[in-house]
């Protein structure tokens, strides 16, 4: 949602001042800060994908997403910035860490964290980045945000443009999320009926020996699968 909304804000409220009044060689303080935060964000993103420690990668992702929130703030898009923190840092990363801890999160390096596809992945990433940058630069070539004036990305401006100019994409996205929500519920219910064997927390009445470790019926894992769906519901609910 945030890229569309950000674009909406930008399109709605950018003052189309003449480009010649803004020189590239005399940056203001905000522009320098924007650049520096951007560099930090980029660095954190690089570490996220290159580090061999899984949980560290998730935590570097926090830095990356937080850096993007700061960039939104510097562009006066306050609402988008806090939503970014709320959803990505507060929920998506927590979900990610939850999944990592449930499955496999060794302390130290994971030898299998290297992928043989890394060069293909790099190519795809560069291509995607190039396409995005090209589109954005091409769309907003001559528009400038007036950082000195009233906040161009305040909650009011964002809401107005979202529900006046961009209602259709907004509604389409909510239908998409609803579909994901329903899908998650259907998947989880099917898994439950298939299982049908003993209830998960049950122990043999003698309680003597859990000698056959049945990973499917391990209480922790079971909790995890249930919660995974719930959090998917939550994401959809937003």
């Amino acid at each position, binding site marked *: 949602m945030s890229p569309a909304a950000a674009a909406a804000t930008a399109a709605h409220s950018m003052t189309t001042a003449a480009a010649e009044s803004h020189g590239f060689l005399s940056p203001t303080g905000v522009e320098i800060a924007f650049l520096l935060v951007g560099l930090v964000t980029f660095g954190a993103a690089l570490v996220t994908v290159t580090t061999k420690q899984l*949980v*560290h990668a998730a*935590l570097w992702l*926090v830095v990356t997403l937080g850096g993007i929130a700061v960039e939104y703030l510097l562009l006066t898009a*306050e*609402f988008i910035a*806090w*939503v970014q*923190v*709320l959803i990505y*840092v*507060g*929920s998506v*990363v*927590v*979900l990610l*860490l*939850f999944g990592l*801890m*449930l499955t496999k*999160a060794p*302390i*130290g390096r994971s030898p299998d964290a290297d992928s043989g596809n890394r060069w293909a992945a790099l190519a795809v990433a560069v291509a995607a980045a190039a396409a995005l940058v090209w589109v954005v630069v091409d769309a907003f070539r001559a528009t400038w945000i007036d950082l000195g004036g009233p*906040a161009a990305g*305040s*909650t009011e401006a964002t809401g107005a443009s979202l529900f006046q100019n961009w209602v259709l994409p907004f509604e389409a996205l909510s239908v998409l999320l609803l579909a994901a929500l329903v899908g998650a519920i259907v998947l989880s219910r099917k898994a439950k009926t298939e299982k049908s064997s003993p209830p998960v927390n049950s122990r043999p009445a003698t309680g003597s020996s859990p000698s056959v470790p049945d990973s499917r019926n391990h209480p*922790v894992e079971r*909790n*995890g699968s*249930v*919660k995974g769906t*719930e*959090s998917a519901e*939550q994401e959809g*609910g*937003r």
Partner: protein
Amino acid sequence: MNDALDVALRLLIVFVVFLTFPLIVGQTEHKVMAHMQGRLGPMYAGGFHGWAQLVADGVKFAQKEDVVPAGADRRIFQLAPAVALLPYLLVLLAIPIGPGEGAVGEVIDAGVFFVLAVMGVGVLGSLMAGWASANKFSLLGGLRTAAQLLAYELPMLLTAASVAMAAGTVSLPGILDAFEWWWLPWQIVGAIVFFVAGLAELQRPPFDMPVADSEIIFGAYTEYTGLRFALFLLAEYAGIIVLCGLTTVLFLGGWHGPWGADGLGWVWTLLKAAVLAFIVIWLRVTYPRLREDQLQRLSWTLLVPLSLAQIALTGIVKVVIQ
């Protein structure tokens, strides 16, 4: 220069509040719990009714050795308490205590989103601690923390959204400016849901499954000693302050009082927050701990539907009175 001084003064005040109020709540908890259980609580430290007990505790914590387990991930283990504590300091900045722009650390346009977003970040501290300790109990505690946050953040957000709908703004001072006394019965369901979900997010009893000391030995904090453990405790009590302040501002009308609020607005805010803090302590003494599945069921089958109903009610009333 005057502006800089003003900002510095505000930050200083918020910081002092951040350092003292949690101690006051902590001491109140000692005494209230003790009297509810038919005992006296701390009586000696500092002389008068043991008022300096928490200061003595702090000195004790500072003297303890700071141990990092051999198998732990050192840097993340050491960073975790700061990540758990700092968000609450930031949230405190945005809570208005009286009328006008002078009585809030920093006016934030999207205040409701700011406070909820930043409060959610604090949980990362517990997760980091739980993972980095290299301890099974800690990992279990971290998992439970994450599950609890995911379950209870939704009702909290929905009820806060209901208030924002009623006020027509997401700025905290703006919500208070729009407040009328009849919002109290109108939003009462939302208020209760918000408060309960907030308690769960803070992992306070009866929602303290993630730290359950009798079964997983304080969960994510098992391996912590000394000052770092004290920081986690401080985060819990700062969280109580923040939750009570937020409930006051969003649902109880903050600085509005029945007999005019001229000049005394901050007294009303503090009074309401103090009553809520007392309720938090009262609940701890009264209710047994909820089991993990009961915790999840309470949120998904009770709080979420209730908050959705509250939003529907808010919307209907809002349309009718326009």
